[in-house]
């Protein structure tokens, strides 16, 4: 069994985020970079699946990222947690790619690595689009099992099958498919481990393959700002909200709120 986990490096969500005035892309130097939080849950799930299947002899976990030089840190984090190896797709031409273009690069890397299972986060905290997993399924012709709150794998049968609980507004759907498949996870699925000291030391020796667009056979013109099919035209800071009224409860706090609601015609 071969699992590839897609991880994205994002600005720390505590940080103030800014757009670059020159090309309207996210200013990634303005904030500390971290692994997209939901992708840590995807890594954890991959590691747990590997354990359930009997460890490294039965299953390998590869961490894949598409991003600038610094993004290697997010691959390292996955290796420190316990993944076996990493792949970093890096190319100057990728800068400014939208989700459609990013998914094209990821899809080529997935075709090349040919895993049985692709695991991803269901959303990145910077773009917040929640579209890349569906796009990847579409591009690679693999079944889409997204928003998983639980993943069960039957690798013994051939072909193997995967079953998830797809979290919905009303509860969840149980969804099944044959491998190879694309699965995205939500945060209630597990509790990601912290890298141990041993894990951090071991990660230094784990192999990371670096791939360019040429290696993947992706045209530079198909990605980046030129190859993206949507773009930011302009942006402006919103005026901060006008300061509201804050009162201290003197036994009539609920009534005061009700008065406000009445005045605003909510009740």
């Amino acid at each position, binding site marked *: 069994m071969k699992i590839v986990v897609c991880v994205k490096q994002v600005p720390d969500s505590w940080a103030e985020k800014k757009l670059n005035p020159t090309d309207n892309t996210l200013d990634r130097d303005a904030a500390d970079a971290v692994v997209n939080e939901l992708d840590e849950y995807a890594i954890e799930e991959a590691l747990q699946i590997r354990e359930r299947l009997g460890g490294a002899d039965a299953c390998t976990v590869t961490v894949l990222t598409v991003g600038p030089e610094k993004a290697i840190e997010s691959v390292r984090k996955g290796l420190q947690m316990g993944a076996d190896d990493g792949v970093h797709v890096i190319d100057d031409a990728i800068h400014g790619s939208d989700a459609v273009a990013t998914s094209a690069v990821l899809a080529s890397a997935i075709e090349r690595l040919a895993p049985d299972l692709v695991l991803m986060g269901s959303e990145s905290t910077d773009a917040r*689009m929640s579209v890349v997993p569906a796009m990847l399924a579409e591009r690679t012709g693999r079944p889409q099992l997204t928003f998983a709150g639980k993943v069960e794998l039957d690798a013994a049968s051939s072909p193997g099958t995967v079953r998830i609980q797809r*979290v919905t*507004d009303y509860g969840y*759907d149980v969804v099944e*498919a044959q491998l190879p498949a694309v699965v995205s996870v939500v945060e209630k699925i597990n509790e990601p481990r912290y890298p141990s000291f041993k894990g951090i030391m071991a990660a230094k020796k784990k192999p990371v393959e670096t791939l360019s667009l040429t290696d993947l056979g992706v045209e530079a013109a198909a990605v980046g700002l030129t190859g993206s099919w949507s773009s930011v035209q302009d*942006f*402006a800071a*919103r005026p901060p909200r006008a300061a509201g*009224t804050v009162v201290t409860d003197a036994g*009539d706090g609920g009534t005061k709120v009700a008065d406000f609601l009445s005045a605003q015609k909510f009740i």
Partner: protein
Amino acid sequence: MAEVLVLVEHASGDVKKVTFELLTLARSLGEPSAVVIGDVTDDLVASLADGGADTVYVASGSEYGDHVVAPKVTALQAALAASGAAGVLVPATAEGKEIAARLAVRTGSGIITDAVGVDAGFVAQQSVFGGSTLVHSAVSTGTPIIAVRPNSVAAEPSSGVGRRVDLDVTVTDTDRLTTVTERVAQQKAGRPELNEAAIVVSGGRGVGSPEGFAVIESLADSLGAAVGASRAATDAGWYPHQFQVGQTGKTVSPQLYIANGISGAIQHRAGMQTSKTIIAVNKDPEAPIFDLVDFGVVGDLHAIVPQLTEEVTRRRA
């Protein structure tokens, strides 16, 4: 005038409110057409006409719900081909965005998600970075596919022609790669959906316990509101995960958001900052949530919220 397609959200024979919002928006961009997929009744088609659709494209069949999103993409693509529409609007819900994502790849079109408005020429407005920045985005290739957040525009129904066109859809084997074997409902019936609700009442760590959420639910029910929760509350297991509001939860944009016992961390604000009116109850006068409020009360929610519920019930009676 070119057609603008609106993907209809419906459940148990009822059209969801967001559909009428999107039809209103579509009318400002071209000729509004609805695309309705799944179990389609005549009443459903009629209410879409009443809501402003000039054309209603129908892909009727029970199979659409049996596989994750892909068959619906095929149906929407068929509507796009049949109409030659200038743009496609979908609700920015989890499923709406996934349908939009796959349609974009299939048709070679650009996609914009979480728009809070769409101007002439399909220039989308997005509110990003927790509402601090307003961005204009546009699609340069293919047909603009735009996912619009519920509650972004007020629905102004105006009778449409309601011409019905039954689509000829061929669902492929690739569309059937997944099988939905079971649907499990966990939500209490009768409350509006978090995404769509005009009013959201939410609770955080200050609520203190799972039982504490009863006062939040009572207030919500007195206002006909949906219930939300902060991550501190969902992580503690006090309230189900699917009601989490914020960066890793739902983004809501209701007319009124009432935050109870929520400090207002940046990740929570990311999910509610575009609410039109914000009220907070918190015992800490320094809580950052008070920076956002139109009206706030410093005090104990366990005293204030039940009193408010009583007042609302009395005044509404």
